[in-house]
């Protein structure tokens, strides 16, 4: 993808791309259990590639999630989307800017700040990260957590440096696998965001996937024919057995099926094009509900109207309480999935874990089940969870405060 962008920006391409790119490389060696020497080697290789490309580049280590601010999890307001006219005007002003900066420049204008060169991550952070990842029980949950943290990190980098869009290099094959995996993880409601072309759930930063029409094979051929340098680093699931995680299973299954029915990947891809970013008919339209803490999609866990609310005794049960003696399991699950009334019952447990869990969407909740304790999570997640639940409490109290008009101000929220 980087190479394509490079070509697109070069002076002799027919349709020149009109944006100012930067490159982010996220070093995940600590999560994958790589030794420091291997990591340094990989980072050095990556640096070579990035320097040869010529764009402003940033290398961030995954450990920096421990120093992220909670604002990463908030959806900021976006600049209003313009119409066709506005687009042309924007392109024109951009071109004028380019002219103003001087002709004959092959390289692009520098960003306002120099590329961030944070020092190598501290040993404490590295250890915290490896504690976090080793406390996760299943590979599936590990991969999901890694993805979430990586997204947050890249988002943060983009926001800090004023980038409005993040381009990901997911190919058609990868997206088809991702679609099926998300289905199996319970994220059916968010498929359009996870695998669509543009993903605006973070508000001001839009994630786009320009490579989604190219299959992996095409990408491999391109890289080979044009001698595109690439760096290999082991991932969390390298050398894991096939049945270790849902991601691996799906990947193996789809590739196997593709060998037998050659149109499998393109079929799944085309189906993903038909998905829209809307709640299903029948769900409450109108004001969008609260958003998931981790993936920032509108929460899809609703009332006992859904089949799974009834059957899902496990995912909505508080971890400490025993399942009730009653034969019908309905009372327990309804209690926790209903908004509003449920808050009180959860609060009486005074369980910080339950408070975090109830702010997550269904898919994230199932993942959190594989995390026995929430403490190793990076502080920004826990801080934001705390903030949101406090805000929710304050909102609840607000109803009662309005009734006594005499002393309506300065009454502290009681829990």
């Amino acid at each position: 993808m980087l190479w394509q962008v490079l070509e697109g920006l070069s002076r002799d391409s027919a349709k020149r791309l009109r944006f100012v790119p930067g490159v982010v490389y996220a070093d995940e060696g600590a999560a994958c259990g790589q030794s420091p020497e291997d990591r340094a080697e990989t980072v050095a290789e990556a640096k070579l590639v990035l320097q040869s490309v010529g764009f402003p580049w940033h290398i961030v280590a995954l450990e920096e999630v421990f120093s992220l601010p909670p604002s990463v999890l908030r959806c900021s307001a976006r600049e209003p989307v313009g119409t066709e006219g506005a687009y042309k005007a924007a392109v024109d002003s951009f071109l004028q800017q380019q002219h103003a900066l001087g002709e004959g420049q092959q390289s692009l204008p520098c960003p306002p700040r120099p590329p961030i060169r944070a020092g190598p991550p501290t040993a404490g952070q590295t250890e915290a990260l490896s504690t976090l990842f080793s406390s996760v029980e299943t590979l599936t949950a590990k991969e999901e957590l890694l993805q979430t943290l990586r997204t947050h990190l890249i988002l943060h980098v983009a926001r800090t440096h004023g980038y409005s869009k993040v381009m990901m290099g997911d190919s058609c094959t990868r997206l088809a696998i991702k679609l099926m995996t998300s289905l199996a993880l319970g994220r059916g409601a968010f498929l359009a965001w996870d695998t669509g072309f543009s993903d605006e759930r973070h508000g001001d930063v839009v994630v786009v996937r320009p490579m989604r029409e190219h299959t992996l094979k095409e990408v491999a051929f391109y890289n080979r024919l044009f001698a595109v340098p690439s760096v290999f680093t082991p991932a969390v699931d390298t050398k894991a057995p096939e049945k270790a995680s849902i991601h691996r299973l799906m990947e193996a299954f789809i590739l196997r099926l593709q060998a037998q029915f050659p149109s499998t990947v393109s079929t799944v891809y085309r189906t993903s094009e038909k998905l829209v970013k809307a709640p299903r008919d029948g769900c409450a339209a109108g004001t969008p509900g609260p958003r998931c803490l981790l993936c920032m999609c509108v929460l899809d866990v609703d009332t006992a109207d859904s089949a799974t609310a009834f059957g899902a005794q496990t995912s909505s049960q508080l971890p400490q309480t025993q399942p009730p003696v009653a034969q019908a399991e309905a009372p327990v699950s309804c209690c926790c999935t209903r908004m509003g009334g449920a808050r009180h019952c959860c609060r009486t447990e005074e369980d910080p874990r339950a408070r975090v869990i109830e702010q997550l969407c269904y898919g994230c909740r199932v993942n959190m089940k594989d995390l026995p304790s929430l403490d190793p999570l990076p502080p920004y997640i826990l801080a934001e969870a705390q903030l949101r639940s406090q805000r929710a409490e304050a909102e609840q109290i607000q109803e009662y405060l309005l009734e006594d008009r005499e002393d309506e101000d300065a009454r502290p929220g009681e829990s």
Partner: protein
Amino acid sequence: MPAPQCASCRKARAALRRPRSGQALCGTCFCAAFEAEVLHTVVAGRLLPPGAVVAVGASGGKDSTVLAHVLRELAPRLAISLHLVAVDEGIGGYRDAALAAVRRQAARWELPLTVVAYAELFGGWTMDAVARSTAGSGRSRSCCTFCGVLRRRALEEGARRVGATHVVTGHNADDMAETVLMNFLRGDAGRLARGGGLGSPGEGGALPRCRPLQLASQKEVVLYAHFRRLDYFSEECVYAPEAFRGHARELLKLLEAARPSAVLDLVHSAERLALAPAARPPPPGACSRCGALASRALCQACALLDGLNRGRPRLAIGKGRRGLDEEGSPREPQPSGPPASEPIPGF
């Protein structure tokens, strides 16, 4: 290590652990819990109103056997009356044995039984004849497509004959999960848009259909049949290995091994799929030949039979669709023929 106590009645020793929640229960409590859950499904979804005459699609397999048994237990509470409808597809060596099981059940439970045969309804075509007819086309046989469509029609016909107001089938949660996977793998946006609910209300003259066992996992169905000592027929249809559903089933087994809640997660996802309005199927009209529910001029059953009669069995399969024609797997989802009675799951 002795088994723990039953978590529910705390008196007997636990005899099993529920697959989903890991709760230890004794046999009676488990059966009671299972029945309570089915009751809740029916009542909460208002699937079977009081006074309904319910035709139970019975194939002799575990799902329909359990369904019939549970509904029979709940019938007084729900104020419904039951009829068993069995479909004879004419698959030699398989269906005869299954039908014998159904007859035994009907006799034991004293429920009226009606058997409808393909040969009688569809001009002499039995599944074996269909299989022979489609075998020569070089690609793998698509006889499961025919079977599914025709069985749906036959079930409807049988239900009408007994004067039923509702049709129930024994699809369980695993079937729903497999269907979603299959529809995605084959790009069947129409069925994806239609599926996910608890059944179809019945449009344009078709009887309302529902699946009371939809929230029960397959393992629990088998456990229930075991504890109630139900007699069912458990062999696979002879044509089953050729169905595309087999791939989805294999995938589901693997997923369940990696993550036990995978089935539930898939059902959750399926309920919340949001498809573009353009992808949804057009509202159905009536077939010009037989008057049944159809999205095109001819209903699928008539179209398929037409193809068979003309000696071009693949006429109605994969024809006139946009491009994509996978090797050997036609556009309709193919229910394979495991013992559960399964008309096409996509409603």
